[in-house]
């Protein structure tokens, strides 16, 4: 038993080192449109962060590969080395800085919004039941209010909870909720906003990987300078999206 295990480990090791040259693995959730999601027609990852990540890797001369991971374990698995960087719509916050390091932001902090069924009273924000994805800044925001927090593992689950009335409203990034509101034909509405804490959205890397962080910082700087990033932001998030100058 032990012997075969060891042989398997050795084999995997030799496989790994053959392809180890500059393959950088980017971890993402793949369930958070328009940031990162799976294109249902092809089954491939797509979204703002996927396009941006591929451009960044190209600029930095890296071969990149995408890895999907549950949101709940996305930071532990970065630390454990399942992938080398996170691009998953992750807000840069001090709490997360204790665990991982962040690159320069590639998207400005945008407001979070409460979405609810039409006719929901605004008071639910303070005394109702609010859904949020677990381990998000929004979950932290709700926990600080008097509202009852109901945490769900995926963003989809939070939407379903609003639709079936299990919760009064959901708090999430406004960009994520916007398509649901516009698609619903009036049944879903925004009932309030909250300031998302943090310094925008950036790539998370291990604290020890200073070299990789510098590489990505330089690449992000370059897409900011030549307007590539602004073009992507406008295309994925609309005209109102605050740009970088």
């Amino acid at each position, binding site marked *: 038993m032990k012997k075969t295990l060891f042989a398997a480990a050795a084999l995997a090791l030799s496989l790994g080192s053959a392809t180890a040259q500059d393959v950088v693995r980017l971890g993402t959730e793949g369930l958070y449109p328009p940031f990162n999601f799976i294109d249902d027609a092809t089954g491939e990852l797509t979204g703002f962060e996927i396009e941006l990540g591929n451009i960044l890797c190209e600029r930095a001369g890296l071969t990149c590969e995408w890895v999907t991971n549950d949101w*709940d*374990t996305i930071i*532990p698995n970065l*630390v*454990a080395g399942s992938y080398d960087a996170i691009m998953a719509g992750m807000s840069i916050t001090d*709490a997360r800085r*204790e*665990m991982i390091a962040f690159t320069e932001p590639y998207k400005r902090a945008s407001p979070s919004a409460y979405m609810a069924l039409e006719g929901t009273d605004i008071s639910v924000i303070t005394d109702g039941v609010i859904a949020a994805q677990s381990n998000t800044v929004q979950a932290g925001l709700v*926990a600080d209010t008097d509202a*009852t*927090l*109901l*945490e*769900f593992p995926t963003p989809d*689950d939070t939407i*379903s*909870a609003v639709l*079936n*009335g*299990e919760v009064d409203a959901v708090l999430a990034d406004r960009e994520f909720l916007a398509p649901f509101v516009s698609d619903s034909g009036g049944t879903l509405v925004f009932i309030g906003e909250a300031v998302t804490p943090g310094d925008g959205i950036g790539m998370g890397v291990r604290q020890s990987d200073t070299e990789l962080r510098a590489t990505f910082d330089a690449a992000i700087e370059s897409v900011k300078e030549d307007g590539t990033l602004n073009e992507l932001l406008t295309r994925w998030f609309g005209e109102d999206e605050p740009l970088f100058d």
Partner: protein
Amino acid sequence: MRTCAESFDGYILRSLGREHGERLLPRGLDITLCDQIFLIASGLIWNIYFAALAIGFGFFLATGVALAKFSTNRWISRPAAGFVFFFRGTPLFIQFFFFYSAFVLLPRTGLDIPLGFTTLSIHTAPLTTAAVGGLIVLILNTTAYSAELFHGALRATPKGDLEAADAYGMTGWTKFRRVVWPNMLRLAWPSYTNEAIFLTHSTTLVFLSAFPARQQSGEAFYYARYFVDQTFNPFIAYPLVALYFILLTLFIIGLFGFINIRLNRHLPRERRQRIRFRPQYVR
């Protein structure tokens, strides 16, 4: 850092809701060993709640389903057999997902079922909570497994006992209550003990599937998993929850063993059934 006493005060009842202790769960580096001991222990309240109620309701329902399946009337036996086949043939984990996603489709305002003379109103809202919806799935599941055990026992009822009952002129309810049912229980009891243990262990799946944990009130394994996600160290929380479950299992074996002695006390010593501590795995 919290002292152990503070952890105890803050978390021993936390699984009942944030009104019953600390509002937030401990996070990251702030987690102490005592936090883990007491918060996981607190989750056991829910494991016991789910197990006790599911076994309690399931026991009576299973007797009914077993009798229905044993019936010679096809219109009664077929649906019962179908029910047992469905719940025994599919994974509990997916049953949770399925029933949750079905429950959420029900109208939240409640269902009104007109019965002609009166209207039956069903409140559907609690069905999406683990405490009610999850419990219902567990009850249905254990009913199916127990019914299969009871059905097997009904088929094995000693012929002599039935003939003796007939000779005494017993019929219907009296015969069932005094001869068939005690025999069924006696024969099925060792396996039923096993089913009770499996069911108790299955309560760990409730919050792992679709049912959300309201304000982070969950069962023991939910908290163990929370701690492992937070600390990235599986060597404290998982052994702890394992230890708690071993104690729970021993308690069940003791309790069911005691009932078993009562069920068998009329028999001569050598014919008594003993609960085997290495029973067949019937689930």
